[in-house]
């Protein structure tokens, strides 16, 4: 059974439907790219998986058959969020805390780690992503790329099973995109299960195992990355790809 199963999820905001029956299955260690036009509901879907947004109908399961049902009424969402790391487009680091404090907050308060233990782990992660010398800086002193890498490290500090990345490079200057993509590539190689919303088609093709195209509130096409880009089946996918390519 898949690690993450999204089944027939519906979600409307103030009566306007955004997701109209989205289904998706992601295996352990797999990386899936979510693509689609702006407003197609990529962020909404990721937020539903993390339980930040409640679904109107459908089910979302994490951790296989005996895992957690995110959409159950009595679900402990804090437990879900310990297994799922979510990284936002706008980084959302806590500006009143140093990099180290940003990273150790959840391990200390949620997992109950000692400060020394949490800081040790945080420094290891920072070193792994080339940020060792930034531990004591405040977020406003870092470049966008560095802030986004810290945000990824902050999510990783809870040792999640699944990482949700929401257009983590689209707020960055072009010359800073590479350093963040390298981090994601490394994550993928280390075996992390990843669902990422992205506009970076070249990157999706390179790193994702599968690509999933959202349009009109449903998954229009889902295929292995190279097939998705080389032999798109649905006319809407072809149109989308043509538009994206004309852009690039």
């Amino acid at each position, binding site marked *: 059974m898949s690690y993450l199963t999204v089944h027939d999820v519906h979600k409307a905001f103030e009566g306007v439907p955004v997701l109209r029956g989205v289904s998706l299955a992601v295996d352990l260690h797999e990386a899936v790219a979510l693509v689609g036009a702006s407003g197609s509901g990529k962020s909404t879907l990721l937020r539903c998986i993390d339980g*930040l947004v409640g679904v109107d109908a459908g089910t979302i399961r994490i951790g296989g058959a005996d895992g957690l049902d995110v959409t159950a009424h009595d679900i402990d969402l*804090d437990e879900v969020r310990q297994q*799922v790391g979510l990284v936002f487009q706008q980084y*959302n680091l806590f500006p009143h805390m140093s990099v180290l404090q940003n990273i150790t907050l*959840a391990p200390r308060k949620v997992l109950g780690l000692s400060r020394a233990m949490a800081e040790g782990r945080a420094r290891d992660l920072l070193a792994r992503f080339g940020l060792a010398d930034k531990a004591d800086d405040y977020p406003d002193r870092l470049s966008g790329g560095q802030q986004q890498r810290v945000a990824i490290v902050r999510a990783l500090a809870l040792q999640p099973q699944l990482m949700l990345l929401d257009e983590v490079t689209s707020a960055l200057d072009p010359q800073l995109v590479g350093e963040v993509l390298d981090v994601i590539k490394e994550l993928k190689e280390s075996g992390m299960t990843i669902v990422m919303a992205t506009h970076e088609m070249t990157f999706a093709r390179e790193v994702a195992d599968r690509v999933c195209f959202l349009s009109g509130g449903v998954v229009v096409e889902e295929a292995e990355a190279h097939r998705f880009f080389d032999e798109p089946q649905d006319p809407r996918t072809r149109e989308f790809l043509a538009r994206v390519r004309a852009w690039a």
Partner: protein
Amino acid sequence: MTTPAEAPLEAPDIPYVDPERFLGQRRRGRRNAWVASVSTVVVFAVLVVGITSTPGWSQVQETFFNWDAAVATWPVVIRAFVLNIKIFLVAEFFILILALLVALARGLQGPVFLPVRILATVYVDFFRGVPTILVILLLGFGVPALHLSGVTNSPLVWGTVALIVSYTAYVAEVYRAGIESVHPSQRAAARSLGLSSLQATRYVVLPQAIRRVIPPLLNDFIALQKETALVSLLGPVEVLRAAQIDAASNFNYTPYVVAALLFVAITLPLTRLTDWLQRRATSRRSAAGMP
């Protein structure tokens, strides 16, 4: 020391300053300082001469600015002023805590908390509308009139409680504005890391909110510091009351002036601190490119 070989690398970092313009700016700066001092001296001289040459001045000086009377009243007035400071400190302590609770109560989400939200809102709306002086009179004379057993009749206590009740409403609004100024994405980020709603408030939202509202909080401190004088309406001999007694017995109003100067002396540092914090916050924001 830099070696000559390194020097050209650093050169672009030093902005070039035209010596002519630099000296011109210096000259202009010096002239501005000179104009400022002269105009200040002239304006103050005109004011002093104008006031002291009015026909009633000697009379006013005798009754309001009498040095001997000031010296005589000083021990009484300063001792009474200590009571104002005590009222202020006790009231401020409770206000800071209670106002935070009220602000948090107003922000509680979910249908279960509706009654709490309503209570907090009604409380704030009511006490922000009623003048503090009325609250002091109502509580100070009203509660003792109820003859409740086991409840103090001390006007000092009820006067202080009235200040607390009234100012908690104002300060709660200050806190609430601060809490709402923290972008919702901060809470979402905290929640996505597994922090509970309470933890997100405690570690992520409140620290940022409170930092932002320190200047307006200090403004309310200053106002409260002055309003401690209103407790005199209930009888306790705080500084205004002491000055009043002294003034009445000597037919001289200098004690009022002394009391006024004491209030200024204690609020002035707070005022300056508030200005400084506000200026610093503004320049920080503009440095970070925020509005």
